[in-house]
């Protein structure tokens, strides 16, 4: 399919966001602490679309919240009344703007995980009701390596619209029908893109890719056999000793999807909630069963679980790796564990 390209002046983007806000909840990168995070905005002025690299936290929480009530229930004399929270998601209309190609790829990974054999209706509802406006990088951050995970600096799918900052304007690539409709309903905001605009984007992407390529990493998408061969490598013990098993890498990963499920009763003991919260495969309790058996007791086995899940198990499970090269796990690790170093060390 021939892709449609347009441009939008920087001031006009604010106007577009203003219009979208009339009918949608808009999520955008906003400055927080030393970086930016995605949050719901009440004015386009709050947006920071010039952030470098990735946001502190991935956008997955707007599709798969860190804590989510699945349903609430009332226990009555004549039965139990269950109210499914999914109903409320049907009217959700949200836009996420400023999301990077690596994080969009993260959503594509979650799409596959949450629709594997069973369908996760909560994730699907949020995903279906969200317009994705991506934003490519002008400058990679310190730990970015998307080129080696095939998730940037440009991507072919997963966005409705994809912006590239060209200085005074954005180049806009239309990815879907949904994105095309935004253009069609706001004809005063978009202009047709020319050869020059496309060349400029190409130049920016090439430069970003070059800078990331300088790290000279192996192709992460084809490490499957290599990793399997090195399952019993001596280096894992070292990383097992290093890891603090804090779970930060899980919680900042755009594709980690593990969760715990529990009931939260009201103190009247007449009503309760079924809740799911993000969980971490680094926690010792993660594999504990009723008998007390813990299947990944050694920290080494837990360090391996995460890395192998990303690079091997994921390939078996959904056909692709689930590392998107955002580098957040490297950025946040208090023990200084760097997946790029792990792979380099295994290569010897």
């Amino acid at each position, binding site marked *: 399919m021939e892709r449609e390209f347009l441009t939008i002046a920087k001031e006009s983007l604010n106007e577009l966001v203003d219009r979208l806000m009339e009918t949608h909840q808009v999520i955008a990168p906003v400055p927080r602490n030393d970086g930016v995070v995605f949050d719901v905005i009440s004015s386009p002025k709050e947006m920071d679309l010039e952030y470098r690299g990735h946001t502190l936290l991935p956008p997955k929480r707007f599709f798969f919240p860190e804590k989510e009530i*699945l*349903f609430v*229930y009332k*226990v009555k004399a004549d*039965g*139990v009344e*269950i109210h*499914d929270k*999914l109903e409320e998601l049907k009217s959700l209309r949200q836009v996420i703007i400023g999301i990077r190609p690596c994080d969009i790829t993260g959503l594509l990974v979650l799409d596959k*995980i*949450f629709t*594997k*054999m*069973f*369908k*996760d*209706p*909560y994730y699907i509802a949020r995903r279906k009701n969200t317009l994705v406006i991506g934003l490519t990088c002008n400058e990679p951050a310190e730990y970015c390596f998307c080129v080696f995970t095939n998730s940037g600096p440009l991507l072919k799918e997963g966005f409705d619209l994809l912006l590239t900052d060209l200085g005074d304007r954005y180049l806009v690539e239309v990815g879907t029908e949904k994105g095309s409709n935004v253009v069609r309903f706001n004809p005063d905001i978009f202009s047709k893109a020319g050869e020059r605009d496309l060349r400029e984007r190409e130049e920016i992407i090439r430069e970003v890719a070059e800078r990331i390529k300088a790290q000279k990493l192996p192709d992460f998408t084809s490490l499957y056999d290599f990793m*399997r061969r090195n*399952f019993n490598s001596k280096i894992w013990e070292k990383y097992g000793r290093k890891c603090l098993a804090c779970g930060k890498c899980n919680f900042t990963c755009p594709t980690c*999807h*593990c*969760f*715990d*499920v*529990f*009931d939260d*009763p009201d103190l009247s*003991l007449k009503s*309760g909630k*079924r809740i*799911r919260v993000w*969980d971490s*495969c680094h926690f010792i309790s*993660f*594999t*504990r*069963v*009723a*008998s007390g*058996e813990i*299947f*990944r007791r*050694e920290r080494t*086995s837990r360090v391996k*679980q995460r890395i*192998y*899940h990303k690079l*091997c*198990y*994921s390939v*078996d*499970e959904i056909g692709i790796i689930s590392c998107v090269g955002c580098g957040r796990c490297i950025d946040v690790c208090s023990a200084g564990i760097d997946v790029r170093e792990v792979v380099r060390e295994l290569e010897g």
Partner: protein
Amino acid sequence: MNGNPYIPKLAVIENIKDETPNIKTFRLKFLDEALQKEFNFAPGQFIELTVFMYGEAPFSISSSPFSTDFFEITVKKMGTVTSALMRKKTGDLVGVRGPFGRGWPLVEVRGMNILLVGGGIGIAPLRSAILFLLSRRRDYGDITLLYGARTPRDLVFKEELERWSEHLDVRVTVDRGDEKWRGRVGVVTVLFDELELDPKETVCFQCGPPIMMYFVTKRLLEMGFPKDHIVVSLERLMKCGMGFCGHCTISGRYVCLEGPVFRYNEVKGFLERAVEVYSE
């Protein structure tokens, strides 16, 4: 199951049977009769059971797949959900999702001799298989059940064991006897000493603590059992049952989707230590 697979369907506790001081069998029936009629499961599959206010936990179905008016779970008091369940009475409501997972390969092993090995509460999913086998007795060769429990007091399905022994070879052992116990004493592998089995013609279904399955598997391999004649049911804490929550994964395989029943040749390739013990 139609609709949102996270929403449990209401079921009533029709009957509760005390098996041991801390194990009970609960007979359940969906409130919605149509749902009860449609509820088909294979022996070895599991359900997610909700005790409202306390949470949800996975349990193997222990009843016969041919009993369509009800289904049963046999539960040992272990944690929050099971303790709350123990306090429930006949007529109380619980929530049920499922069935989930893959059960025993009963159809595939037709014509063969069946060796069933259960340890402790691990006999629960085997009971469902036994009841299936009894209904289809002529389709199978010799059937032997080896069952081990800690003490005579901990033996589950006591009267049924006697009834079953009319149709299959039932052998029981306990780790520690008491003054009245005149049966075998020792772990379940001691029962193998008296058995004459043809490994080529026999398939073994086992469910019990990991340590039991390790020693039983070791013994079977020594006896010359082909790897695909050894079938295990693995215990993991399946929280969602649908391949999302990650708690039951072993080397990227979801026990809730692909298991809990695996043939040993499938399990052997698993990389992690807890399972590697089976592959030595």
